[in-house]
């Protein structure tokens, strides 16, 4: 197989629906064989982007390239791109076999080859013997597996997945996440995966594009997106965080900044994006992830930490971790995750206790935008 097949590039996509701007200049490039996630809240334009790539919509402006070939106005049936939908979109009047055979028949495969290949793929997704069932006889997870192999059987260069696990229960969702990753590895097909579930995007994507209001805010691998969000929206949308609004007091070289936060006081943080704008007096947000905060009955010895005292207001027991909601002096609250190391001998921090919270400046991200 040609290794360069399946490279996708979109340039400056614009799309309006009536008075609503759905896409406001979307550009990105996807490498062949990449698992690329489009992540954002509902209405952010991610599905519109997907439909334009699939040919189900045409953009008002902008271009779509597949392997450097302009496919912007090519109808969907002429694109070597298939789609998996949230609600499976199986053909209700056709059996599982005829559903999966739909694409190959349009391409004129001999029936013998279709029969072999459908059987092989059904086995791959653990649905052997389902050939003659109808979609309504299948569970949601089974239907989505059928939809997946129906889209894969013709080996398209790109597979678009529009919230494919959104309608499924948690357990099946997690299982199918793994299956999808394995299938993508096995088939080496470029995946464009639309989701509003940030944990899904983090778990599955090689790279993630975070979208909001028709624009792409940040593109990067999961770790970059999580650890170095470009602005308040990305920090808040991906994972959990404490966003503290304040004003810059002092700027040091290397992006280090001292920020005054009303109700907490001054703390040190690092800036990684738009840092040239940093100057004393600038309004910024400081993002501190709950799992980066230490919680203790005693203050830290190391003066390098940002340290603050508070009172435990709420405890949420999550099993894997314990979440504390700590009320600070002037009414602000901070969320803190602590790994669940509980055992009988150890006394856990409990309600109304006075605790010390401390974190490294490297974990306090100063966000300009």
């Amino acid at each position, binding site marked *: 197989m040609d290794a360069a097949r399946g490279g996708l590039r979109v340039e400056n996509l614009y799309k309006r629906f009536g008075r609503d701007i759905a896409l406001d200049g979307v550009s990105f490039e996807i490498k062949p064989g990449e698992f690329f996630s489009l992540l954002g809240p509902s209405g952010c334009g991610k599905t519109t982007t997907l439909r334009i790539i699939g*040919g*189900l919509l045409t953009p008002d402006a902008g271009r779509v390239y597949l392997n450097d070939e302009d496919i912007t106005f090519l109808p969907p*049936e002429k694109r070597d791109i*298939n789609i998996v939908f949230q609600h499976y979109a199986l053909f*209700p*009047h056709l059996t599982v076999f005829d559903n999966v055979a*739909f694409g190959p028949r*349009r*391409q004129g495969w001999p029936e013998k080859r279709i029969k072999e290949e459908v059987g092989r793929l059904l086995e791959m997704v653990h649905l052997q013997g389902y050939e003659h069932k109808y979609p309504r006889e299948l569970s949601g997870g089974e239907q989505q597996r059928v939809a997946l192999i129906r889209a894969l059987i013709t080996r398209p260069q790109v597979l678009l997945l529009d919230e494919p696990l959104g309608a499924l229960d948690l357990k099946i969702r997690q299982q199918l996440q793994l299956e999808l990753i394995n299938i993508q590895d096995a088939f080496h097909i470029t995946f464009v995966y639309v989701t509003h579930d940030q944990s899904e995007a983090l778990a599955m994507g090689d790279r993630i594009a975070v979208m909001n209001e028709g624009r792409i805010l940040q593109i990067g691998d999961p770790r970059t997106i999580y650890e170095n969000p470009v602005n308040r929206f990305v920090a808040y949308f991906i994972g959990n965080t404490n966003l503290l609004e304040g004003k810059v007091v002092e700027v040091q070289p290397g992006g280090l900044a001292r920020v005054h936060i009303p109700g907490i006081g001054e703390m040190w943080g690092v800036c990684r994006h738009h840092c040239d704008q940093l100057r004393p007096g600038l309004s910024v947000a400081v993002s501190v992830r709950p799992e980066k905060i230490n919680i203790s009955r005693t203050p830290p010895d190391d003066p390098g930490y940002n340290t603050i005292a508070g009172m435990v207001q709420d405890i949420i027991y999550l099993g894997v971790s314990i979440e504390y909601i700590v009320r600070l002096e002037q009414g602000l609250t901070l969320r803190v995750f602590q790994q669940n190391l509980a055992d009988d001998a150890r006394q856990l921090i409990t309600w109304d206790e006075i605790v010390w919270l401390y974190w490294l400046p490297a974990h306090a991200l100063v966000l300009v935008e």
Partner: protein
Amino acid sequence: MTRRWRYLVSQYAALAANMLPPLIYLLIFFYIPMSILLVMSFWKSGYMTLTPAFTLENYKLFFSSPIYLRALANTVLIATGTMLALIVLSYPIAYYLARFSPRHERLLLFLIIIPVEINFLIRIFAWKIALGRNGIINSALMSLGLIDEPLQFLLYSKFAVALVLAHEWLPYVVIPLYLALKGIPQEVIDAARSLGANRWDVFWRIIVPLSVPGLFASFVLVYIPMLGEFAVPTLVGGPSGYMLGNVIESQFLSAGNWGLGSAIGFVLLTIILILVALVLKVAGLERLL
């Protein structure tokens, strides 16, 4: 054990209580009269006489009479032709309304339904005026010089019956089709296209099969009553547009031969049941219901 039994009894009692009123209604107004007619169809019968003695004479008479058989052939021909024409005519309308969701979707639907609200006698007489020898169609065509003398087939013909029936039943074909087409998820069509189906494939392999339940509803709603039609052929059919409904009506109302009328009625009913069974089978509807 007794508790389970008592539970079942209470469940069935509730079910029976729910079903009883319609059952009684159907019994009094449908099953009992139908049974009486069925019995009468096997009685010796003549002008204004009916003797309770078993005979197959009424059925024999029907199947040996060329006039009655021609009426039967006319009936099937007119109803089938009108039904096919209605489907061909309604499909684009329903398709346009359902798949393109025009801005005035509701208004258009309303316009399609509104003729139903007009008294059907008024509608038929309006057609008579339009189709007659000196009607607007003939006079318009003549004054345009397209024809030299009035077209004869416009009124008192099979064509006239079919036309008026089609006008009468159009909404009942459009609406079920519209609902069936409206119920096809866009995602299913998108999926077909992304899998390589062109518009032709999408229409014939996805949209048409998925609109079969709507077609079947239209068929039951329209084809069956059309087979039993007698008012329209009486008024615009003339001798060549004579239908089985007219024969049945005349046996009951003017010939006074209730036995023969009942027998013909049951012949028609049998034909209808066979047709419905056939259509169900051909449409493979059990898969979709």
